């Protein structure tokens, strides 16, 4: 077992990003801003994952021009890439739906464009 990763700036930045994005998700009624919030949430989580991949003294696992020494296991980087790819798909789908919502209701406010309730 490796020792716990010390709390440092990347984690604080990730927490800040997640916090800001939750603020956006809760208080911003503009659907485009909501999607931006989800994008920021994704960035926060990705930053968290990438920060986990850092190990003191480890080398980046790139086989060209690598210095001598141990390499880190690139699992968190792989996770982050997968998560980024998924988020591209999710954001594209959400934006398309917002375009359609705007076409149907002429509004991108989450309260005014709502039809279904109760």
């Amino acid at each position, binding site marked *: 077992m490796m020792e716990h990763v010390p709390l440092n700036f990347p984690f604080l930045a990730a927490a800040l990003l997640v916090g800001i994005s939750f603020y956006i998700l809760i208080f911003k009624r503009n659907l485009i801003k909501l999607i931006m919030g989800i994008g920021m949430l994704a960035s926060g989580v990705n930053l968290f994952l990438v920060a986990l991949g850092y190990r003191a003294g480890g080398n980046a696992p790139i*086989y*060209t*021009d*690598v210095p001598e020494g141990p390499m880190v296991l690139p699992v968190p980087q792989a996770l982050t*890439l997968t998560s980024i*790819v998924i988020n591209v798909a999710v954001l594209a789908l959400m934006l*398309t739906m917002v*375009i359609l919502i705007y076409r149907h209701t002429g509004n991108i406010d989450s309260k005014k464009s709502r039809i279904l309730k109760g």
Partner: protein
Amino acid sequence: MLSKIVRTAANQLILFILIFGLYVIAHGHLTPGGGFQGGAVIVSGVVMLLVAFSSKELKKSLRERTLSVMESSGALIFIGLAFAGIGIAFFYNFLVGTPIFGRIPVTGPNPGDIWTGGVIPLMNFAVGLKVVAGLSAVVLAMALFSSGEEIEE
């Protein structure tokens, strides 16, 4: 449609963007990058064309049907490569040791050997094809959508 300067510059730049994207795809198993990243670089070129020319112009050269076939074949090549190793295991790297991308990479400082990685470079190309087609379709559809048109069936 933007001015002639922008259009000419875009016409020249797209070549470099394409080359850079292909470079990122081809070196995906050696350096950071790969199919998705290189594909995204190429699609950024498509976006540039979309800005320089209008979406209607671009629709003529990028047909939805062609993109759909490209995307499907990219995914099929990927899954086919995964299936090809099923004699041993799904996703088994059956090309290791063969002349095609089969060399064992050396550790330590070295300039990198392109003929390594087994099926991974091939999968990178498949993913690149899929990403280029898929993201171009997404971008084009959105541009057409917001200008009030539909992408043709």
